[in-house]
């Protein structure tokens, strides 16, 4: 049964990693705006710079 002790500690540590990931994402501002990223991902990223005719 003592293997349970190891497992419990491991599972708490794994959960702790998720908590850390959550805190990191909040700090990075991922929860600040819930609309723009959903649109942004659909944009074609290349604005064709060849269209820029210097003449």
């Amino acid at each position, binding site marked *: 049964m003592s293997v349970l002790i190891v497992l419990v500690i491991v599972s708490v540590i794994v959960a702790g990693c998720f908590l850390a990931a959550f805190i990191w994402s909040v700090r990075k501002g991922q929860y600040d705006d819930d609309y723009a990223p959903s649109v*942004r991902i659909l944009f074609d990223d290349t604005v064709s710079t060849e269209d820029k005719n210097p003449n």
Partner: protein
Amino acid sequence: MPETQRLIEKPSKQKKIIQCYHCGESCDSSIEADGHFFCCDGCSFVYNLLKENGLCNYYDLSTTPGIKVKGKYNSDKFSFLDTPEAQQKLITFKDEKQSQVSFYLPQVHCASCIWLLENLHSIQTGISFSKINFQRKEIFIAFDHNQTPLRKVVELLAFIGYEPYISLNDSEEKKTKKVNRKHLYKIGVAGFCFSNIMMLSFPEYFSSGKIDEYTLKHLFSYINLLLALPIFFYSASEFFVSAYKGLQQKWLNIDAPIALSILMAFSRSVYEVLSQTGPGYFDSMAGIVFFMLIGRWFQNKTYDSFSFDRDYKSYFPLGITKVEEGVEVPSTISSLKKNDHIIVRHQEMIPADSVLIDGEASIDYSFVSGENTPVLKRKGELIYAGAKQLGGKIELMVIKTVNQSYITQLWNNNDFYGDQKNKDKSFIHPWSRYFTIVLFSLAAFAGIYWAFVNPKNILSAVSSALIVACPCSLLLSSTFTFGNMLRYFGKNKLYLKNASVIEALSRVNTIVFDKTGTLTYTSNASVDYCGVPLTRQERSYIYALAKDSAHPLSRLVKEHLLRIHTIIPFRVKDFRELPGKGTEGTIDNKKVKVGSCLFITGFNDSKTNSAEVWVAIDNDVKGFYRIHNLYREGVKEMAAKLETKNYQLHILSGDNDSERKRLQTYFPLAPLMFNQSPQDKLEYIKELKENSARRVLMLGDGLNDAGALRQSDVGIAVSENTSQFTPASDGILDSHNVNKLDAFLSYARAGKNVTLASWIISILYNFVGLSFALSANLSPMVAAILMPISSITIVTFVTIATGIAAKQRGL
């Protein structure tokens, strides 16, 4: 004089209106590019700029996404951004190669906006990066100031229609809005601890408290204890702080019993674990905290892009052009002193009370008084701060500083800041006080009972009573009810500042309306023509002239002509706009004049108070367009419904009383007050509140209503376009939904019943829990099952109930 015979103009059948490809405004077909039509040169310039840079995708993402660039583009407007003083205030970061700046762009409204603004770098070299925060309508720009100065960046934004709002407020406080994040951290930590405590408590439940391996059992308890620490000391801290603050003011708020319950659960559990007498109630405690934090977050999630606390500083621009020894110098408003000379151009605001020295001033006071016809001012006359200049450039001498000007005085008035409205008036607090009193007497009763029967059980019964009877479900019911209602209001475009406004709305019994802009349309009016009949060609002349004029009445005439008639596009030669008089120009070799009665006929004949636009072609006076306020659709029905529900209605208007008769048919019982200054409005509301003890809801739109909005119990700012600026208020209402006011009020009242019903449910759960507790039989498992179930029942109930209530009222 023409015979003023009235002609009824019939709209031609099913006229197809051409829309501007850029901004969607109805227009004629005179400006065309690549098969698309544009309403003005501004829009077609922007289109061409985007086309040159391969950014036409802008028009594919949404239809007519553009923003019309209002008025003529003024090249000097942003010159103050070249001053180091202004730059230092706005730029958040600067090194040798890069500057970073954030602006508020109220115009941002769709995916196209995001796309265009994040591709700024392909229009302007020097801009390296731009990012939109859609919630807050903010743009973050990083640019190389050696290549592109700040002024150029702002000018580009303004050119493409997204003029950043740079106000006096921005410069004074650079507050970062990161308060909300703290709450998210707390929820995250509570969620993590709660789920792990739950998991480690399962063995205890399933073996009904008899785990054979002592090491395991103790390990689980000690890990639980460790996990409970962050919840108790970090996540739950706000309940303790709030309860303590309440007690300091001898006030038992709803957080007091919650804090007590958390404290009891924690200390009893710590005791049980350390003395190895039991597993404790850590799981219940963690659950309570987690659910309540979520409830608060749900309720407090408000509208980031709206600001409900604007004072005059947000209205005033940051920059101004000063005249020093005959030279125009860009400067900031905060440096403005008495006797300074300043230059104000078309569409700019006068920042301080000043005297006109030079130029022809046509002053639009709509911001200050609500009167929307511009007034002509002569040299030496006083012009109040907050007025806007229309027409040419004027020179003024400042006689009072910005802070002491007439309009800003309103804010310095102490009433204005009053104590925070509606605070602590919530019905939740008195109810929770009764709850606490009942709970304490029950616990004391149980204590006395067990003292006689079996003294061993005293501590257990009393403490578990205090743990299980936590009013958390009571708190949850109100937070989720109001949170949900805020969302329903928001769906119908009434954006409330916070949940306490709903309660205040439910108590209102008097409603005060501002007239102009609130009950009437601001950009639409009923226009009718009196005079000799016009030919199609003549109407097209008038249209061509009115189209280029900045005057609000010209715009209304233009819209009217476009709506009703087919227009032939003409080009105007020798266009001249005379401020306060009218416009003239040559079209088709004919001299056309459009303007005031005095300007066209040479004498002032206007007997009525209504606004008129006179027309002359080749010096032959043809007639005039009379412009009436147009009341919003459904206003009459709404007023009738409100009156049958015994609301007292009042109308306050800054305008003259030409509309009195018409208005009285809409509001047969309401007292109508005209020519009200901002101060009069404030006093009127104060009078109603203090002498008649009415609870007042005020609806208004402009800065002229700001005082009254602030003074009333609930002040709602009505706005044609929610991206526009509104005065400080408790809520912002889209003007199209003013006619839903009766539904809003009745929904607010329904909210109280929903809360009441859900309280009864939670009291029933509390009975079950207490009966276990008082008999000293509350096992941690029962507590851990009862609490989540009661919370879930309540959340489900209020979600369904508020939804049904909204549907019944057509919201």
